[in-house]
């Protein structure tokens, strides 16, 4: 068994530029530039950075939803950099994603039961109707949702319940790797805390590996084993979460940590923010 679930080596992703005058080529926009990342089996690996730093692009590449411009992507020992759709579709059940906004990720016309049954409609994954029903019940229980909500449509669920449903759906095909793209950013704090507890619990019960994309360092402290900090399409710091948070070695990480509001009014003097306008890091 391979220790690394996911390995990215020298991954670069550039998109074609836009808005060049006729006859000239716009410079391409580089989203990822020479990214090396190893996600070990069973760990929760946080990917931290501000908007536009390339976190979500990296998440999509990790699942090979997009192909890199250069570099190598290895999933569980298999090079999938140039894998065909057919080869990928065999691997897809093992790698799943949960998005930030559960309302956008769920089809409003599908009830919870239908959303959970859909993964089994694909050729080759077919299950008899009653087994699908049993699996749906099992998934609801796994995600901490009452069975009575199987008939509910997304608009009848609360935000936290919707995100639980997305998590349940992602688990339908027994994956071992999940990309969690800001899974609690759209939720209220008291609900977010419950979802984080659920994710921690599922990880240990189902031996899952997470790539946890977030901009919130406090979530990292609570949940994650390893953290990689992204800035302008590069990873500037990687290390065990507690070490990085306690003693960041890159000035950008230190800046991020200092900017985090602390829920203690006696420590407000420490809040930076500097003389407005402060430096925007990526400029």
């Amino acid at each position, binding site marked *: 068994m391979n220790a690394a679930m996911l390995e990215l080596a020298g991954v670069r992703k550039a998109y074609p530029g836009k808005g060049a005058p006729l006859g000239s080529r716009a410079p391409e926009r580089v989203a990822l530039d020479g990214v090396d990342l190893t996600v070990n089996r069973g760990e929760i690996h946080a990917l931290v950075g*501000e*908007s536009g730093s390339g976190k979500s692009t990296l998440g999509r590449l990790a699942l090979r939803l997009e192909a890199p411009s250069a570099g190598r992507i290895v999933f569980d020992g298999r090079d999938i950099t140039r894998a065909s759709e057919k080869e990928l579709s065999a691997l897809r059940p093992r790698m799943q994603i949960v998005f930030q906004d559960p309302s956008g990720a769920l089809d409003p016309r599908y009830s919870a039961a239908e959303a959970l049954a859909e993964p089994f409609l694909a050729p080759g994954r077919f299950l008899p109707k009653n087994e699908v029903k049993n699996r749906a019940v099992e998934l609801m229980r796994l995600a901490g949702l009452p069975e009575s909500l199987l008939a509910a449509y997304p608009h009848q669920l*609360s*935000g*936290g*319940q919707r995100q639980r449903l997305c998590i349940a759906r992602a688990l339908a095909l027994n994956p071992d790797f999940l990309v969690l793209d800001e899974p609690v950013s759209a939720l*209220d*704090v*008291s*609900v*977010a*805390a*419950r979802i*984080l*507890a659920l994710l*921690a619990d599922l990880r240990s019960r189902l031996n899952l590996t997470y790539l946890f994309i977030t*901009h*919130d*360092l*406090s*979530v990292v*402290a*609570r*949940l994650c084993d390893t953290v990689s900090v992204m800035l302008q399409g590069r990873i500037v710091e990687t290390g065990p979460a507690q070490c990085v*948070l*306690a003693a960041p070695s890159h000035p950008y990480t230190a*800046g*991020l*940590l*200092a*900017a*985090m*509001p*602390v*829920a*203690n*009014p*006696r*420590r*407000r003097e420490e*809040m*930076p*923010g*500097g003389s*407005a*306008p*402060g430096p*925007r*890091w990526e400029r």
Partner: protein
Amino acid sequence: MSAPLLDMTGLCVAVPTPGGWLTVVEDVRLRVAAGKVCGLIGESGCGKTMTALALLGMEGFQGWRRTGGRALFYGRDLFAQDAAAWRSFRGAGAAMIFQEPLSALNPVLTCGRQAAEICIAHGLAGKTGAKARVLELFTQTGLPDPDFAWSAYPFELSGGQRQRVMIAMALAGEPKLLLADEPTTALDVTIQAQILRLLRQTVDARAMGLILITHNLGVAAQLCDEIVVMYAGEVVESADVFSFYAGPAHPYSAGLLASLPSRAPERPAAGFGGIEGTVPAPANMPPGCRFAPRCPRVGEVCRTQRPVLTEIAPGRFVRCFFPLTGEAP
């Protein structure tokens, strides 16, 4: 504490439903002094934004209505004024900063023109003097290139710059009270820190009152002087910021604080906090305390009787039969 700029009591708001008018905000009490920041804390749907919109007399535009309350602003009752008075109050008396500047700003007008419009509407500048005034405001709110911002469309600016334009526009009518509805939720943390600093400087320099609506207890701790916690349309606790964070009195406040992931976890990783259950639907409020079904301290009386907002210490109000007393959260 100086005499309050705004003293609102008993605000009630009802929304139309197929079954008749349904009260969703009940008996909200809010007091803001000049130069002070009052944090209105609560989770989605607890009535924070409606409270702010009611303070701006916006109910007619939204389909819901205010069914009770009194809001003294410099001793004058806002809720007794006519439509024309509301018009001049909005912008010159109180102004609002919205969460998402991209949707709050007009995409087809330049930032300069939108801001100038406000100065002109409130008679603070003529057509010719407006530009100088807007550029001054843009400078004060820390826009790096005020001339560029004047002629830029909102989409040409970064999120932080757009929020600075929003703040400049809110200040354009020289209001005495600012309402900021989640002003930093759409921003990155480093930009958030800058905007919070700007808001604090603005409030201090102009001796304005600020009502900061947020669900982020970290942000509230950094900026606020007073904290008002809402749950299911009611104020459940109101206290000064230091005593609130030192030991919340309402079990809901305690649950919120316990839900916060701390950067260096003093608490063991075992507990994630959070509050079990969900907020009751307005049509289906429990007969007693609205928090009773989720409350760890619930007693028999909580299920049958509604607690009232009681002053348990000077300046400290809580709506609970069994408030926590100063123990650490």
